[in-house]
């Protein structure tokens, strides 16, 4: 097994990511209402819904980009309301972006290395004063090590390179190691984003429309890859996707959002035949002309 495989400290099956009655409002607009979700290690969940249903908003609340107006988000058992995205990431939550957000001028290798951390170099996390002081100390010590080029620092740098090279290999990107991210073809950029997210050694991986812009063949490969990643890296995976075939094909449990509200949840077959879901996707007129749900 590779070094990058995380042994979860909590017992297997404990929820790694939990959203409990999460709501968020922008001005008067309710972007998300009473959103509930639990991701455990080994889960492969889907989050679907028509455009503007609040899927990306849900991701942003979970990862700390937005603060929930109500409810609670827990990562690895910790309540993270009010935490910053990087602190939540350190607890084991990583994501990709719908509109690819790579570090465009950095090489593929450096993109992944930014996310990688040396073994045991995880900084203390929290919002209390004590952890802040401790964190500051660790930070300044690390800077001095880098400036003095200590043997330990050099070792850690090589370790990071190793980790990153390994992840590039897993994602089939080794041949792009020294190329700038902006010069990679679209599909490879999407894979590089996943490699980068894996660099943070997550317990839960959130994929925001990973198949967008891919052709059928690439999508099929992607499905295999997502499953493989979940097993090899012992992840819980949550996927936002428009492509029904992909979601139905790989997800074991699906949550459907519409106008910020959860309108259905369940196994793919169950969700597919849900009247509300069909309404949301195809509109009432479809149901009328076809005489109701299947």
């Amino acid at each position, binding site marked *: 097994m590779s070094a990058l495989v995380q042994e979860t400290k909590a017992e297997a099956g404990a929820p790694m990511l939990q959203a409990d009655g999460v709501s968020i409002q922008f001005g008067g607009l309710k972007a998300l209402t009473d959103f509930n979700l639990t991701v455990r290690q080994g889960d492969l969940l889907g989050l679907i819904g028509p455009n503007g249903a609040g899927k990306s908003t849900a991701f942003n609340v979970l990862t700390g980009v937005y603060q929930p107006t109500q409810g609670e988000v827990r990562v690895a058992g910790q309540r993270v309301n009010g935490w910053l995205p990087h602190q939540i990431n350190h607890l084991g939550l*990583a994501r990709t972006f719908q509109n690819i957000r*790579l*570090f465009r*001028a950095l090489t593929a290798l450096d993109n992944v290395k930014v996310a990688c951390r040396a073994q045991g170099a995880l900084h203390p996390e929290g919002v209390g004063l004590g952890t802040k002081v401790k964190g500051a100390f660790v930070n300044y010590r690390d*800077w001095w090590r880098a*400036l003095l080029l200590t043997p330990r620092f*050099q070792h850690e740098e090589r370790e990071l390179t190793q980790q990153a090279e390994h992840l590039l290999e897993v994602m089939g990107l080794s041949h792009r190691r*020294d190329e700038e991210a902006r010069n990679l073809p679209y599909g490879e950029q999407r894979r590089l984003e996943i490699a980068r997210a894996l660099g943070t050694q997550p317990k839960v991986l959130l994929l925001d429309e990973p198949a967008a812009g891919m052709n059928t063949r690439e999508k099929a490969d992607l499905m295999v890859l997502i499953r493989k990643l979940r097993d090899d890296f012992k992840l819980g995976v949550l996927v936002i996707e428009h492509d029904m075939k992909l979601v139905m094909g790989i997800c074991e449990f699906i949550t459907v959002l519409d106008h910020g509200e959860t309108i259905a949840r369940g196994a793919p077959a169950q969700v597919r035949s849900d009247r509300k879901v069909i309404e949301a996707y195809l509109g009432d007129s479809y149901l009328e002309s076809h005489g109701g749900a299947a």
Partner: protein
Amino acid sequence: METPAIPVPEARSAIPASLRGILPVLVALPVLALFQWLMSDAPFASYLLSVVGVNIILAVSLNIVNGMTGQFSIGHAGFMAVGAYIAGVMSLNLKDVALSFLPVAASDQVFFVASLLVGGLAAALCGFLVGLPSLRLRGDYLAIVTLGFGEIIRVVVQNTDAFGRALGLSGIPQTSTPAMVYFWVFLTVLVARRITGSSHGRSLWAIREDEVAAEAMGVDTTGYKVRAFVISSFFAGIAGGLFAHFVPIINPGSFTFVKSMEIVVMVVLGGLGSTTGAIVAATFLTLLPEGLRSLFSVLGAEGSLAQRVDQIRMPVYGLLLVVLMLARPQGLFGTKELWDVLPRWIPRKRKGLA
């Protein structure tokens, strides 16, 4: 802690890992000593080289914030002023103190370095206080806040007797030497290069490229920005301290918008993110006006023409920024270093950060 399953290879370099940290310093010291010996009889060249050196420190340190991190500070002269005044006042007060166990010259140098460090630390503290509120927010606030900081410093100096008010401070012991200036140039460049090559540097570049993504990948963006800003301010303070010890007088007029802009132009011209670019641009833009000025005086042109050089510098810098942004926003070198853009026959380093 888990043991890595992939063995991490040992360094393939001929230089032992424990030596690599200190090696550049060991090489630099004798070179600087030789340099000092060569310069000892040339006061004007010493002065000119010191000015160039101070500007290199300023440009390279500003590049850490404006180039590598993609923020935009335009008040670097304010931090320089803090270093100059704090170090200057300290040296003035310790002028007649000497360490009995050292020769007088050596004792002076010890106090000089101590003043420099105190000045640098004071500037770094100011950097922290200014950076923390503004760097939490979107980048463009930093421009205004740093500009405002320069103004606050000017007002504080003009209202404080210990800083000589508007008249300035004179009589600061002239203990600076070109070798000392270039030792700090060397340290600044070394620090900038080592930051670039470390995980810290990568985090800074990541912030420059995409702050949201960097934050999502676990980079403490505010923390990194503030630390970059503190380091940058520290070296600006050192540059100010050095400056105060080789010019006859410092006054608020030495550290105005004009000085800040000069440094910004150096960094933008050299290429935001390129350390060697900052060095080349700083050298060029310091020597050019000097050269023009001496040229005019040699040609026997009346004093006004030589004065024109100073007068015309600022509008030219302003236009230069506009033209650069429209025609060549990456400056001379972009984010590359000198050795990446040199002709083929010089062996290149493997492409790292682009």
